């Protein structure tokens, strides 16, 4: 993997008449796993879409290795930067092999249609996601967990140094969530692939992120290592949630325990009072 520099300067993004993200500066650490967290509608998915040039900036710019992504050819960006959208569409009757193969789009052209390199990349993606035995199955027959792994395989087949994923764990149960994040960590460790994930689960975010970006109302509130960022004060500020932060018994990373209004043990309530 060659190293890359993905950053945004004074970035403003929005839909219709509203700005969702305004005047934001961010640099994505190269070769690391970055997780973007925040409450619903805080602009984290919008930021990810902006970084992947799915949204044209209203102000500022997104720079990939020093060049504005808007000025680059789409296909050149797609060779370096991949994105798994929140709700991709599986065409009717498509098989796993065909779908994963479509990840090779930016490496093919009008005349250069399919090569041994493409076969290798598809095979590696199937292998890495544990979907090799599904290759001839139709997407419609798969379970939610399998389907999500196939989409990840398609993004992997694109073979980019940077991979952005928009809430990839949404439809997965806890077991498959952990499996997917383990897989992304494997990829990051094996090849120094830069991974950026929008994630809802704070505890998984703390466990898997090298770098956390916490967003609120379209701005970055805090960023840094999970230990630096995820404190009770920041979580209360970002999510409006009263909570305790304790060490995760498995990883030692911060773990958020919400207080809520019910079910607190008596001695805890007294200690807090």
């Amino acid at each position, binding site marked *: 993997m060659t190293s890359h520099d993905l950053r945004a300067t004074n970035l403003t993004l929005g839909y219709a008449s509203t700005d969702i993200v305004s005047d934001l500066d961010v640099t994505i650490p190269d070769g690391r796993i970055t997780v973007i967290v925040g409450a619903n509608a805080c602009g984290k998915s919008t930021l990810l879409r902006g970084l*992947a040039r799915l949204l044209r900036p209203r102000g500022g710019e997104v720079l990939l290795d020093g060049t504005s992504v808007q000025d680059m050819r789409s296909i050149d960006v*797609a060779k370096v930067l991949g994105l798994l959208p929140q709700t991709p569409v599986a065409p009717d*009757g498509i098989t796993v092999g065909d779908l994963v193969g479509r990840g090779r789009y930016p490496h093919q052209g009008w005349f250069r249609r*399919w090569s041994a390199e493409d076969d290798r990349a598809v095979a590696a993606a199937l292998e890495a996601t544990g979907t090799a035995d599904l290759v001839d199955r139709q997407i419609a027959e798969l379970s939610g967990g399998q389907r999500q792994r196939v989409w990840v395989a398609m*993004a992997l087949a694109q073979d980019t140094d940077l991979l952005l994923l928009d809430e990839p764990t949404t439809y997965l149960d806890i077991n498959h969530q952990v499996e997917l994040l383990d897989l992304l960590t494997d990829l990051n460790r094996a090849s120094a692939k830069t991974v950026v994930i929008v994630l809802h689960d704070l505890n998984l975010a703390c466990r898997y992120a090298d770098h956390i970006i916490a967003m609120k109302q379209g701005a970055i509130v805090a960023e840094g290592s999970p230990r630096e960022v995820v404190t009770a004060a920041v979580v209360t500020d970002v999510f409006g949630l009263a909570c305790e932060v304790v060490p995760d018994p498995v990883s030692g990373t911060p773990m958020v325990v919400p207080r809520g209004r019910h079910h607190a043990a008596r001695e805890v309530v007294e200690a807090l009072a």
Partner: protein
Amino acid sequence: MTPALDVLDADVVRSGRRAQRRRSAVVTSVLALVVLGLCVLTLMIGSYAVPAPDVIASLLRLKDDAPTDFVVRDLRLPTVATGLGVGIALGVAGVVFQKLLGNPLASPDFVGVSSGASVLAVSSIVLLDAGSTVVSGSALAGAVLTAALIYVLAWRDGISGYRFVLIGIGVSQFMLAIIGYIVARADVYEAREAMTWLVGTVGQAGTGELRTLLVALVVLVPTALLLERPLRALELGDDAATALGSRVEVSRLALLALSIVLIGLSVAVAGPIMFVALIAGPIAQRLTGPGGSLLAAGLVGAVIVLGADLVAQHLVPAPLPTGVVTGIVGAPYLIWLLATVNREGRGG
């Protein structure tokens, strides 16, 4: 990701892909042969039967035989060319719409693009007594305007296939009402002519309209095949297509424009032959395997139109418009499609 496994798997991926490509190539070749066979058959049969060798000899101008040449080249060849051209146009346009909008119901004849083309074409026939250029132009304009109307009405931060289909059905009804009004106003003879035209038939082609369609096909079918690559990305949704490096807006506009032109010109030639655009793509996909192909869909369209015309002309007591036969075959498919789409909870 150990290298040994990769090599093994890459072979599996390659052989799977090659098997799929082989199947697609075989199916496409067989379809092409069937189309050719239907063309020859159409040229052979009728009140003056011509044996196949004579048909081929006449087409290739191998010998002079005035009566045969007249029947084959002057009487029957226009019908064959129409069936072929209209079938390919409908098949390609239908499958492009369905894939772009991600919905098997989103074919141009179902969402009102064909009816829109018919409105202006019928108006120009009944009200203006127009010549072929004007009829072609009106049908084309009708298709473009209707598609634009549906697009604008269905637009809400992007296009969802489901909303496009629902609004298209509404627009289609509106167009049919206008057609009803025009036909009701026409005198009896014109009304009868308009009704036949509205069911759609390959036997009525005007030479000028036909020539326009055939020239357009020569340009647009290769273009469609080139655009099949971006179409395969667009099928995955706008976000995924952009992430893969496809220029979504440009490709979609080009594909939509191409299909609309094909529909408009085919309506100008043969009237709105219903259901061909709806069923050609799904049938082709069944035959070629998952993925499908635009070329196969076009050939299936040609098979349907040529076959339906043979049935309509020769297998029923009195000749019928082609559209009656495609309607009888297509309507049950539509009902089946609606039933299964709802059962599987998709359709949007």
